[in-house]
Structure formats: structure tokens, C-alpha cells
């Protein structure tokens, strides 16, 4: 079968909503796009542990500490799961981690912002996980089987994450003036970075068209962003807090909320490594990895010794 015929069959499979599985033929660009997107997703889970980890040791109650730890542990699990799913495309976890540490692979830029007060943990859960869920729910129907199944599993846990975040903010919004101020401060700082999580406007997005045809992407950046805005405006009323966008307004004609302009200059600066915490995040990952090298080597050496002994016995 020649390349063209293979490509036609591949597209027909996608059009018929039949999942592509690891052993199926796929165009190299499809494979590369998935490796890029899925490893980026895995890295986001892992780097995303750091801003929240910043508050584990200072969580205000035992219950909050336990919930936060459990949530971060889920993220480590998601990372592990996504790395494994990506490995089905013929790349190793080691290669992916090297790419992250060497700055060749990206992760969600939102994790380059600092967590400055306890309410940030609430804002991350509500807004950042909320934005991630929008994206991930759409990805449950993505055309690559292992990715789709990973998303189905991950989405179940993410909705718990979002609820715990909202619950933190809800509690603060009913607390003292200081607590309300904490919550508002967190929203002020996390709203726009969360809006940027959906990526550039559809008109500016470089990967979108092909990804949509291959059904890797099921909803456009702007569609997802609009869903997020519409949901958030409803939910923030319950909190009695204000989203930091004076242009938020119901548009009767569109049946959606309008929102103000996004600062794309800031977005690109952070993507390109000039955000508040880019260097610290990668440095922390590298340090954990480098410090762990002797541990991983010892585990391998021990396993080999054990095996040799078993062979002798």
C-alpha cells in the first residue's frame, strides 16, 4: 500500500470515530504532534506539583493539608499515566524528561506564576484546574486511543480538584476581612493566567487546523475559553468576589459573556521563559532528578544483584 492510500485509510478511520491505536499506521506528523502535546501535558502535571507543593507544609489545618497532599499526589499519578501513554508512540520517559530539563519541551505556562498566599491554592483548584478540565473533557474524545482513555480517567479526579479549590475560596469568602482580601488577591493574580491557558486566539494558533482535522483537538481555543468565562462568571457570584476584568458583560446577541483583551505580550514572555518562576520551576525539577540519580542507580544495581543470586540458586 502506498503512502497516499494509507493516509486515506487513516483519515477514514478518524472520520468514522474509530480510535487510532499504538500499532496502527499513522502519519509521522500525527505521531509527532501527539508526542509534543501529550508529553507537554505530562510535564504540566509534574511541574504543576511545585506551586501547590509550596503550601503543603503551611496548610492551615490538618484536613486541608491532607486534601492538598492527596491532590498533588493525584497529579504525580496523572503525570506517570501520561508519560506511559506517550511511550506508546515510541519515545521513552527518559527522553521526555531530558527534553523538559533542557528546555526543549514545554509545559503549561500558568505554573510559572508564584503561589503567594493560601488562597492561591483555592484559585489554582478553581480556575487553573477548571480551565484544564475544559480542555481535558474535550480531549476525552481525541482520536488517539491511549490519550483518550488517559483523559477519561484523569477527568474524574480533576473535577474533585476543582471542587476542593472552590471550597477553599468559598470558606475564605465567608471568613474574616483578611481572608476575603486573600481570596480576592488570589483571583486578581490567577484570572488572566488561567484565561491564557487556552492558548492564542484561533486566528493565531499554529497547530490548530491540522489537529482539528485529525481530531486530536475537538474544540478550538476560543470556544473553550468562552465556555470557561461563561462558567466562571456564574460561579464567582456564589463567592461574592470579583473577576478582575471590567469588560466582562453579558452579550444578549451572542448568548455569551464578552471579555476584555488578553495581554499576549505577557503570555509570550512567560512561554519564552521570562515568567516569574520559569527558572525556579525547572531548577527544582532538575535538582530532584539529579539528587535522585544515585538512588535510581542503586535500585538498578540491587535488582541486578538479586537476579544474579536467583540464577545461581
Amino acid at each position, binding site marked *: 500500500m502506498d503512502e497516499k492510500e494509507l493516509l486515506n485509510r487513516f483519515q477514514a478511520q478518524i472520520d468514522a470515530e474509530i480510535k487510532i491505536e499504538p500499532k496502527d499506521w499513522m502519519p509521522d506528523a500525527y505521531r509527532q504532534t501527539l508526542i509534543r502535546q501529550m508529553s507537554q501535558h505530562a510535564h504540566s502535571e*509534574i511541574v504543576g*506539583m*511545585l506551586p501547590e*507543593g509550596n503550601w*503543603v*507544609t*503551611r*496548610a*492551615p*489545618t*490538618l*484536613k*486541608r*493539608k*491532607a486534601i492538598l*497532599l*492527596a491532590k*498533588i*499526589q493525584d497529579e*504525580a*499519578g496523572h*503525570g*506517570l499515566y501520561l*508519560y506511559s501513554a506517550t511511550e506508546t508512540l515510541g519515545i521513552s520517559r527518559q527522553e521526555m524528561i531530558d527534553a523538559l530539563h533542557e528546555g526543549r519541551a514545554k509545559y503549561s505556562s500558568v505554573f510559572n506564576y508564584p503561589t503567594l498566599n*493560601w488562597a492561591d491554592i483555592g484559585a489554582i483548584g478553581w480556575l487553573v484546574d477548571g480551565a484544564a478540565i475544559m480542555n481535558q473533557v474535550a480531549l476525552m474524545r481525541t482520536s488517539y486511543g491511549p490519550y483518550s482513555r488517559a483523559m477519561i480517567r484523569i477527568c474524574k479526579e480533576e473535577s474533585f480538584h476543582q471542587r476542593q479549590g472552590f471550597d*477553599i475560596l468559598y*470558606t*475564605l469568602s*465567608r*471568613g*474574616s476581612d*483578611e*481572608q476575603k482580601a486573600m481570596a480576592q488577591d488570589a483571583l486578581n493574580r490567577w484570572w488572566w493566567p488561567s484565561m491564557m491557558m487556552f492558548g492564542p486566539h484561533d486566528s493565531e494558533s499554529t497547530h490548530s487546523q491540522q489537529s482539528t482535522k485529525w481530531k486530536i483537538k475537538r474544540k478550538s481555543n476560543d470556544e473553550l475559553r468562552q465556555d470557561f468565562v461563561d462558567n466562571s462568571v456564574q460561579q464567582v457570584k456564589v463567592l461574592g468576589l470579583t473577576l478582575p476584568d471590567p469588560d466582562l458583560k453579558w452579550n444578549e446577541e451572542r448568548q455569551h459573556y464578552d471579555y476584555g483583551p488578553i495581554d499576549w505580550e505577557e503570555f509570550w514572555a512567560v512561554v519564552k521563559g521570562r515568567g516569574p518562576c520559569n527558572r525556579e520551576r525547572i531548577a*527544582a525539577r532538575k*535538582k*530532584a532528578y539529579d*539528587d*535522585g*540519580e*544515585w*538512588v*535510581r*542507580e*542503586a*535500585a538498578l*544495581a*540491587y535488582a541486578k*544483584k538479586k537476579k544474579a543470586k536467583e540464577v545461581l540458586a
Partner: protein
Amino acid sequence: MLFEYILQLADNQLILAQRLSELCGHGPALEQDIAITNISLDLIGQSRLLFQYAGKLDEQHRNEDQLAFLRPEKEYRNLLLVEQPNRDFAHVVLRQYLFDEFNFLNYSGLTNSKDEELAAIATKSLMEVKYHLRFSKNWVLRLGDGTAISHRKMQDALNNLWMYAGEMFEKTAIERDLVKAGIAVDVEQLMPTWKESVMSTLKEATLNIPEGGWYQSGGKKGVHSEHLGHLLAEMQFMQRAYPNLTW
């Protein structure tokens, strides 16, 4: 009296959980990151059960968070061992192993306590501690008998931590009375079994017990190492900075 005894049990779980939680996101590999977080979570859960029970007996009617976060340093009754810092993964693993062997025996004994609530907490916790012990023991073996580097690091950790092990078997006056009443475990009696297990593991791990025995204690009396103050400053920060609020 029972109140103080329960606090002592709770403090050990809490302080070790806090130490382990510092590693969340910084483990040597994702799998170990998850495992350490898991142990930390279990220990927080155990400490909560104990603090809640202590709260019921407390004359001041403090809740779990007031007990966990709002006591001065000298009122914490945890062992010096569990407050020792995470110098490297070898120290983390060895601290965990020495404590897990003890925690396992102690909870096993407590399942027979005449105090039913304590016995119930011990039964539940014991299931978790069995898993902790399996994890820490396996890592002592792997690292002790792994590479030359890992062996050296583990021997260093053992040299640093061994002197804190003896405190686990020191009986306080309160414990003495509660042992008589059939409520507390006699920690002195746990020592031979503990030592036998530990010696056998260390031997298999090709590690040597340092000379000079064990001689550091004080945690059970509220006299701690310099490390605890910093741990508490961080852990208590929110409750101290914003008192009497709901979170």
C-alpha cells in the same frame, strides 16, 4: 494522663508526616514521590484520629487543629528521631525504617489496649504501617546493598541517626502507670524484638551499627533538637498569623 499519652502518639505521626510532606514534588523519581506522599498522608490521617480522641479528653476542649498547631514547642512529645531533617534520601529512608519497625510493634501492642478507642485506632493504623514498613525496609536493603555510593550514604545516615533510636524504648512515668492499667504498651519490652528485626535488615543491607550505642533523648519530655522549632514555625504559620478563623 491518657490525654498526654495520646498526644505523644499523635505527635510522632504528625511531625514525621510534616517532614515527609516537605518532599512532595521533590522525590528521586515519580514512583517514590507518590509513595512518600502516601506515607505522609497515612500519618496525617493517624494523627488526626489521635488528636480527635485527645480532644475529647482535653480539659480545654481543644479540637484537632488547636492541638496540632497551637502548642508551644516544649509541649510536643514526639521522638527526636522523627524531627530530624531530610538531609538526603538515605536519611529519609533510614529514619522511616527505624521508626516503622517501632511503630509497627507499638501499634500491634495497642490493638490489645483496654482502651477500646485506642485499640480501634491502632487496628486501623496498623494496616497502613505494615505497608510503610515494607517500603522502608526494601529501600534500606536496596540502598545499603546497591552501589558503593548508596552504601556510603546509607552508612552515613545510620551513623547520624542511630543515636536517636534508643529514645523509642524509654518509658515515661505516665506510660508506667498506663501500662499497669493495661492501656499503654510497655516500650521497654519492645526493644528485643525491634533490635532483632533491625539487626537482621541492617546485616542484609551490609550496614554496620556505629559504636557508642544510643544516647540522645529528650523529645518525650519536650526537650527537642534545634530542628523542631523551624518545622513548627512553618507548620504553625497560618494558625499563628491568623488566629481563630475557619479555613
